[in-house]
């Protein structure tokens, strides 16, 4: 069985590494992009099963990238990771169709549980 694909979009290498360490590399193919525009382009190319997306990024921010990804695939499963704890930010992200918002820095249990939830969803489809 082929591996599931995960796309991690964050301008910070450190932040991408922090997410990747909680993803089982034997079970997933992990792809990375360091800004929103590259993330959208890579999404279109590889059509990953789900995405971890940062918000504050150069070139194209996470809000716009989320919008673009949802245009490509309205059912895209996008988990937004953000340090911005304003309620309105969370509301806006959910309105744009994110699957979930997780607070940065990423917590192991939250990432692992979110991946489990997503796998359950994907297996039901």
């Amino acid at each position, binding site marked *: 069985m082929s591996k599931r694909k995960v796309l991690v979009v964050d*301008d*910070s*290498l*450190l*932040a991408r*590494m*922090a997410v990747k*360490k909680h993803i089982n590399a034997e079970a997933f193919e992990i792809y990375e992009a360091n800004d929103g525009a590259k993330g959208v382009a890579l999404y279109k190319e590889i059509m990953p099963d789900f995405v971890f997306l940062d918000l*504050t*990024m*150069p070139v194209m921010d996470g809000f716009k990238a989320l919008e673009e990804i949802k245009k490509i695939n309205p059912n895209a499963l996008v988990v937004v990771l*953000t*340090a*911005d*704890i*304003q309620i*309105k*930010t969370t509301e806006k992200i959910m309105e744009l169709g994110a699957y979930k918002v997780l607070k*940065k*820095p990423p917590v192991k249990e939250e990432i692992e549980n979110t991946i489990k939830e997503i796998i359950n969803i994907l297996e039901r489809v």
Partner: protein
Amino acid sequence: MTQSENRLILSDFEKDALKEIINLAFGSASAGLADVMGMYVFLNVPVIEVMQPEEICKYIENEISLSKGLNVVEQYYIGKIRGMAYMVLSFENVDEILTILGLKEIQKVQSYSHDILAQETIIEIANIIIGACVSKIAEMLSDVVTYLPPRYIGSDYSLEAISKELFKPDSYVIILKTVFKFEGKEVNGYIFLVNTYDSIQWLKDSINKFIEAYI
């Protein structure tokens, strides 16, 4: 400063980590500011620059148009990380902030001086945003900082004089810059955190400890 000299102070990966730390800190700061302002706050990707003290003034002036005057608030922070924080707003921005907060109406009714009200308001905003940013950075790097009260230095500020007073001429400073905007309003402000040379080694070590714990 050449790129290689710049890297001697902080490697690209350390800069990347520091940017992420600032991102986390400004995320908390924006929530505090949004509560006070009652509106959504946007933050840009932070920028980190390493330079010599005499370059600070020119750098900040290049970033912000001085043609219409500025409001500047400074606040000194002291811990293992030490330096001066500046919040910079244009005069038009301060007027807009007073309108957003409904203070222009109060000013009319209660006959407060516009200038005093403007100063007090931006000092309070600076206090919230600088406090949240610096404290969060310090917390993430296992430091505790204390602050001197924020000081309004107005449009006739002299960053040159301040930088001479605070920073040794042959040293380096790390500038951390971010721009914040209010939703639907033409209000842009800048925050600069200018850290002294003697905190750089500590900062480097702490960033590396943070990296180890983070990944």
